[in-house]
Every structure is written in C-alpha cells, then in structure tokens.
C-alpha cells in the first residue's frame, strides 16, 4: 500500500495519524519518504498523486493500492 498525497489543512497531522493507524492494523505502507529518497537518487521531482501505471509491473510487485486524501476542512 502506497501512502500518497495528503493535501489540505492539518494534512501533516492527519497523515501522521493515518500512517500510524495503518501500521497499527498490520497494513504494510510505502510512504512518500521512500519515494522521495528514490526520486532524489533518480534526480526527479516526486509529484503525488501518481498517475499512469502498468498491470505487468503491478503483478510483479504484488497488489499495490495508492491512498490519497483531500482535506477540505480541519
């Protein structure tokens, strides 16, 4: 599971809570921290949410869901 963009007011606080809750429920999370690190290695900018993906690669890497949240009021 990939934790993507958490946008809007109090996004940082909500993102931290969501990540912790996912981990507490045994959900494996790949966060934007790993993505940022990988992006820096490739000298590219990370821009979430992601678009475009490959069924081939999705099968190779296993089930991968991307979760994103737009906060409009907090």
């Amino acid at each position: 599971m990939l934790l993507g963009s958490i946008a809007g007011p109090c996004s940082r606080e909500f993102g931290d809570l969501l990540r912790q809750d996912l981990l507490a429920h045994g959900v494996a999370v790949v966060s934007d921290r790993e993505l940022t690190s990988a992006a820096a290695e490739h000298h590219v900018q990370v821009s979430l949410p992601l678009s475009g993906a490959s069924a081939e690669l999705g099968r190779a890497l296993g089930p991968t869901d991307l979760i994103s949240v737009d906060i409009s009021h907090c």
Partner: protein
Amino acid sequence: MPLQPTLGSGLPATHISRTEGHFLATLHVADLATGTAVATVTLHADPARQNEAQTAVPEHPAPSEVEDIARRQAIDQTRRLYSQWKENQEFAYMDDKECNLRQSWDLLKAGNYSGLLRAARANAESCHAGPKAEAAAWYDLGIAHMLLQHYEGALTAFDRSQKLHDIREASDLVDRCKRDKAFAEALAHQVVTWMQAEPKTTTATAEVETGIIFDDDLVIRLVQGNVEDADIVKLIATQPNRFALSPDDLAKLRDAGVPEAIVNAMLARKR
C-alpha cells in the same frame, strides 16, 4: 472553534463554554496496477466538548484537543477499508520486569507505536540490568522501529541486542527487516520510474511498456524484495536495460543471490 459562553436556562444559572471541531475530507484509493479507482470515502466528523460551571465562566476546552478528536474520528471511518491490506505479523516481544519492558508492552498492545518507540528507546538506553535484560531492551527497540518501518533503526537495534545476548528470534527479524526494506525501496524505485516514463500507446498484442530501465541494481532489489523469478525474467525480456555484465558484475549479481535463470535472462537480453 471556541463559542461565546452561554447562560443555561433555569436556576441556578450554568455557564457553558463549548468548543466545536469540524473535519471534512475525501479519501481516494486507486489500484496502481490498473489505475482504476477502488474506493472513494467521505470522512466527516463534528465533535464538540464543553465545560460547565455555576459560579464563573469556565475555560473553553482547548481547540487543539477537539481538532485531534475530529481527526481521530475521521481515522475511525477509514478502517473499514483496511481489511484488504491487512497482513499477519507475528513476532515475540520481551516483556520482562526489568528495564520497564512490561510498560512498553502495554503501548504495543494499544497500537501506540510512536509512544512505543520513545519508551523502548529510553528503556534500551537506560537499562543496566545485565547483558540478558539489556539485549531484551534493544531487541524491543528493534521491534518498535520495525513496526514503524524504520528499517535502519531496527537493524541497528537488533545488532546491538545480538552482541549482548543471543535472542533466537532476532536473526529471523533481521532477515525480515532486510527483505521489507529491499521491497519498499524496490517499489519506490518502480514508482519513480513510472513517473519518468513517457505515456506510450500499446496495442492488444504488444508487450506492455512500463518505462522501467533495468540495471543490475534493480534486478538485485527485486530479487531481495521476493518478487517471483518468473516475473523478473519476463520483465527483463520486455523492458529496456542498462545491464553491466562483466565477469566482476556477474560475480556481484551471484553474490547478491540472483538466481542463475535470471542471470541467463540478462545475458540473453544483452546479446
């Protein structure tokens, strides 16, 4: 937000200071493999807290406290989505009386992983109850790091534990940490590579273009990330590459545990 104090009806008069919180968000889940939306959920919470007093206007409940309640109520609403992502995790946790380990066990049971990490770190750094107890404290710190996916911190703590006393479970967890770390890195690299790729048109019979540029390092990451050999071979056969296959490079691949079938696929692709 804090509201103006109001005077309650009837006698004696009651002063009420009320603070309301509001949270509204939309959560989207998309399948990366197909790009399709899996779920969209509206998260909505409007908690309120109030203090009452009869002799004077009471303090308003802190807005930050009510905002936190609102966020936690919203998190509760996301949980029904979790079932499909759940993975069973089994590990031993040391809850000895020494070095406060039993208290940190309570934090683990409550799912408070950030609190667990702070407590486990304090326990490990302050524990002087002999090698066995100290090893247990460092082992528990490794578990706390692992649960938060801080793999480097976990590996360091497990290593420290093993140097003090051999805990049988620790070596298994070290392997698991390395695997999870490799997989997380591999997945992150794939996603970044997707983002670099130009959109390409494919026909029903064409090979799928992922935009991945395969190199030796990526192959090693996929192998260590437990991706099926057959899937890796298939990707090698269809994706562009920048393999380095000198005798030294081949030795490095084999030392890293890359199976011969995958090495052969890389060689075949390079010819």
